[in-house]
C-alpha cells in the first residue's frame, strides 16, 4: 500500500517533539522578524532540496508582488512556526533578505508540486496533489507526504473543516519526480511513482494511464519506459495518444522502439499516423523492413506472406530433446518466440512438423524431434488473406502459425497479435 497514516513513515529521529503541518495552512501565513508584530511579508512558497529519503526545507520564499524583489529566508533563520506567524531572525547585514536564486535540485512546493498530477501505480489512477504534508522537528522541516484526497483541495480553499473523506497520503518515499531536470525547469513538472516500477506494469494499464494525462506528462511518462515496454504501450494506446506520443519522439528513441516491433505491428502503428510522421518513421527503418511496411500500408488485403516475422526457431528432425533445449537456452533472451520449434529439412527448410515447448521439456533427453513433432503441422499458405488467417487462429487457438509457400517451405511465422486489429 502506498497510502498510509502520517506517523507511519515519519523519519526515525523525529522523537516526541515534532509538529505536523499542511502546506496549505502555511501558505500566506505572515513572516515576522522576532515578534509577530514586525511582519516582513507572507509566505509565498517553500523551497525544498530533493534528497533521499525525504527532501528538507531550504528556506521560505516571500514574494512582494510586482516590482519589488522577492526575499528568501534560509531555513536556519527560522525560529519557530506559530499559528499566527512564522518567526524568523533578522537578516544578517541589511534590513532585507536577498532575493531567491534557484539552484539545481531545488523544488518549490507551490510552484512545482501543488496541483500537479501523480500517477498512482497502485490504484492505476491519475491523482492530483492537493496538499503537501510537512514534518517539523528539531528545527528541520521535512517533506513527508503528498495529500491526494479531496480534503486537501478543500483546505486549499479554506474549507478544511469539512472533512468529507479520510485523508489519503502518499509517502514521499514512493513519489519520484520523473526527472530532476523536469522539476527544476520552471515550465513544468510531473510526478510519478518510482520509475523502476513503471516497466513492471502491464502495457495495457500504462496505455490507459497515458491516455488520461496531458501531452507533456505523456511524454515524461513515456520517456522512462524501456524500448520494449514503450513499444508494447504504444501499440496498446488509442490512435490519438499514439499520434501525440510519436510527434514528440526523438529519432534515436523512435528507432529503438520500432526495432521492438514486427513489420505488421509497425504497419498498424503507422496507419494511425499523419503522413509526415509516417515518412519520418519509415526513414528510420532498415530499407528492406521499410519496403515491407510500405507494402502492407498500401494494400487493404494483407496476405500471410507479407505479415510473416522471422522471429522463430527451426531445427532439423534428428535433433535430440537435450540438444534442442540447449540451443533454445543459447538463443534466449533475444528470442522470445520459443513456444514452438519448427522441424524442417536442411538445407531447403521444408516444414515437417511442430514441437510444442511443453512436450520438449517433458521428453526424455534422447528423444528426437522427429518423434516428438506433430505432423503434418497446421500451416498458413502465404497467399492467405487476413480474414482467412483470423479464421485459422479462431479454429486452432494457436498464438503463432507457420507460413509456408506452395512447396511447403517455411517462410516465417505470423502471430495472433499481428492480425488482431
Amino acid at each position, binding site marked *: 500500500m502506498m497510502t498510509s497514516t502520517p506517523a507511519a513513515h515519519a523519519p526515525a529521529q523525529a522523537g516526541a517533539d515534532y509538529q505536523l503541518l499542511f502546506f496549505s495552512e502555511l501558505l500566506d501565513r505572515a513572516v515576522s522578524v522576532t515578534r509577530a508584530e514586525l511582519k516582513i511579508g507572507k509566505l509565498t512558497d517553500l523551497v525544498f532540496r530533493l534528497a533521499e529519503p525525504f527532501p528538507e526545507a531550504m528556506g521560505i520564499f516571500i514574494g512582494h508582488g510586482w516590482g519589488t524583489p522577492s526575499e528568501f529566508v534560509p531555513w536556519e533563520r527560522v525560529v519557530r512556526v506559530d499559528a499566527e506567524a512564522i518567526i524568523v531572525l533578522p537578516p544578517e547585514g541589511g534590513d532585507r533578505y536577498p532575493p531567491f536564486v534557484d539552484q539545481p535540485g531545488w523544488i518549490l512546493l507551490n510552484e512545482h508540486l501543488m496541483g500537479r498530477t501523480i500517477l498512482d501505480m497502485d490504484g492505476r489512477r491519475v491523482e492530483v496533489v492537493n496538499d503537501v504534508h510537512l514534518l517539523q522537528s528539531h528545527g528541520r522541516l521535512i517533506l513527508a507526504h503528498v495529500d491526494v484526497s479531496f480534503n486537501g483541495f478543500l483546505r486549499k480553499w479554506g474549507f478544511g473543516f469539512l472533512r468529507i473523506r479520510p485523508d489519503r497520503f502518499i509517502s514521499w518515499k514512493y513519489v519520484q519526480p520523473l526527472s530532476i531536470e523536469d522539476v527544476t525547469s520552471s515550465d513544468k513538472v510531473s510526478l510519478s511513482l518510482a520509475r523502476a516500477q513503471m516497466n513492471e506494469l502491464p502495457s495495457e494499464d500504462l496505455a490507459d494511464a497515458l*491516455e488520461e494525462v*496531458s501531452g507533456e506528462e505523456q511524454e515524461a511518462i513515456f520517456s522512462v519506459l524501456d524500448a520494449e515496454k514503450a513499444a508494447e504501450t504504444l501499440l496498446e494506446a*488509442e*490512435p*490519438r495518444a499514439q*499520434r501525440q506520443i510519436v510527434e514528440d519522439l526523438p529519432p534515436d528513441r523512435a528507432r529503438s522502439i520500432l526495432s521492438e516491433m514486427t513489420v505488421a505491428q509497425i504497419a498498424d502503428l503507422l*496507419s*494511425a*499516423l*499523419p*503522413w*509526415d510522421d509516417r*515518412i519520418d518513421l519509415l526513414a528510420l527503418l532498415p530499407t528492406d523492413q521499410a519496403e515491407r511496411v510500405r507494402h502492407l*500500408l*498500401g*494494400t*487493404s*488485403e494483407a496476405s500471410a506472406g507479407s505479415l510473416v516475422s522471422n522471429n522463430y526457431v527451426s531445427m532439423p528432425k534428428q535433433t535430440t530433446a537435450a540438444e534442442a533445449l540447449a540451443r533454445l537456452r543459447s538463443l534466449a533472451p533475444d528470442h522470445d518466440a520459443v513456444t514452438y520449434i519448427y522441424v524442417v529439412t536442411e538445407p531447403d527448410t521444408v516444414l515437417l512438423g511442430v514441437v510444442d515447448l511443453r512436450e520438449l521439456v517433458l521428453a526424455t533427453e534422447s528423444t528426437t524431434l522427429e518423434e516428438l513433432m506433430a505432423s503434418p503441422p497446421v500451416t498458413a499458405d502465404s497467399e492467405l*488473406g487476413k*480474414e482467412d488467417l483470423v479464421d485459422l487462429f479462431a479454429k486452432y487457438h494457436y498464438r503463432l502459425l507457420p507460413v509456408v509457400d506452395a512447396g511447403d517451405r517455411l517462410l516465417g511465422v505470423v502471430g495472433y497479435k499481428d492480425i488482431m486489429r
Partner: protein
Amino acid sequence: MYWISKLIHWLSRLKRRWLILLAVIGPGVITMVADNDAGGISTYAQTGAKTGFNMLWAFILLVPMAYFIQEMTVRLGAVTKRGHAEAIFDAFGPVWGWFSVFDLALINWLTLVTEYIGMTQAMLVFGVPGWITFIAVTALLMGIVITGKYWTFERITLFFCLFNMVYIPAAFWAMKTGNVHDGWMAVGRGFYSPDFSSGPSLGSAALLTLIMANIGTTITPWQIFFQQSAVVDKGMDIKDIKYGKIDTLVGALLTCGVAAFIIIATAAVFYYHPGGQIVVESAAETAVKMPEVMAGHWGLWAKALFAIGLFDAGLLGALCISLATSWALGEVFGWAHSLNKSVREAPWFYVAYLLMLLSAGVVSLVASTRVQDAITIFVQVVAVTLLPAALVFLILLLNDKPLMGEHVNTRGQNVANWSITAFVIVVSTAFGLSVLFPTLFG
C-alpha cells in the same frame, strides 16, 4: 478442374472487395444524405411547386460540385488524421481557428433549431404534440451515439439514410395523377431544356433566390467539418482514400437524386395541378396539402411519406450537425472526442452534444413563428461569413505539399475546386444579401 478453383478464388476475391467497399461506405453517404435536411426538403418542395421540372438541370451540376468539395475532406482526413478544426488551427493560427469554430458552432446551433422545427412539424402531421417529439427525438439522438463504437453509429445512421428514399415512391405516385401532360418525357426535358415561358410565371428575383437556396443547401460548412471528422474517427487510412472517394460519389449521386425526386413529386402535383398552381412554402405544408391534390388513399400515403421523409431528414441533419460541432469543439479544447469512446472516457464530447440538442430543441418549442423566421435568415447570413473561409481554407490545406505528400491537389482538381469555390462564394453571398435585403434583386 483448375479453372473452377481459379474462378472460385476470383469470386471470393471479388466478394471480399465488395465487403471492403461496403465497410468503407459511410462518412460520404451520411454527410451527403444528411445534407438533405429539414431545410433542404423545404427548399426542394418549394422549388418543385414554384418552377415545375425547370430546375432539375441544376442537380446535374450539383453532383460534381458536392463531390469535388467533399472529396477533399476525405483526403485531408485520411492523410493528416486530424479533424478540420484542428487542421485550421495548425495551419492558419488561433485567430482563424477560433473564427471558424465559433462561426461553425453558432451556425450549427441555429440550423439545429430548424431541424427540430422540421421534426416537430412532421410529427404534427400525425397528431404528435411537439414536446413529445422533442423528448423522443433527443433520447433517440443520444441513443445513436452513446454506444461507444463509431461503427454502430455509422450503421444505424446509414439505416436512417435509407428512409430518405421514401421520396422516390412519392414521386412515382405523384406522376400517376396524370397532371403532367407528357409524363416522364417532361421530367426528362427538365434536365436539358428548361422552359420558363409556359406555365405560371415567377419573378426573376424569386427564381434567383431559389437557385441560390438550392446550392446553399447542398454545400454547407458543417459538411466539411463533419465528413473530415468522421473519416478520422473511422480510422480511414491513405489506402482507403479510393474507397472514400467512391463513398463520396455515391453520396453525391444519392443526395442530388433524392432532391430531384422531391422536386418531381411536388412539381407534378402542385405546379402542374389541373386547377392551377398551388403554392407551398415548406415541407410540412407540402405533406398536409398532399391529400387535397391526390385522389383517394394515394394522397394519404403521399402525405405520410412526405412527413416521414421530413422527420427523417430533420433527424439525420440534427445528428450530423451536433456531431460536427462536438468533434470540432473537442479538437479545439483538447477533450477526448471520438465515438469510439464511452461517455465516461469522453464526457465533454457527449455533454456538448446533449447540451446542443436540448437547447436547440427547447428554443424550437418556445420560439414564435417570427423568431423562427429570423433564425432561418440568420443561418444564411452566418453561412455567408463562414462558407467562403471554410472553402478557401480547405483548398489551401489540400495544396500544402509537406502536409499532404503525394495526395496534394492535382492541377485539374485545383481548377475544379477553385472555380466551384468562386461560384459558391458569389452565389451564397448573393443569397445571404437577398435574404437580408429582400428588395435587392427585385
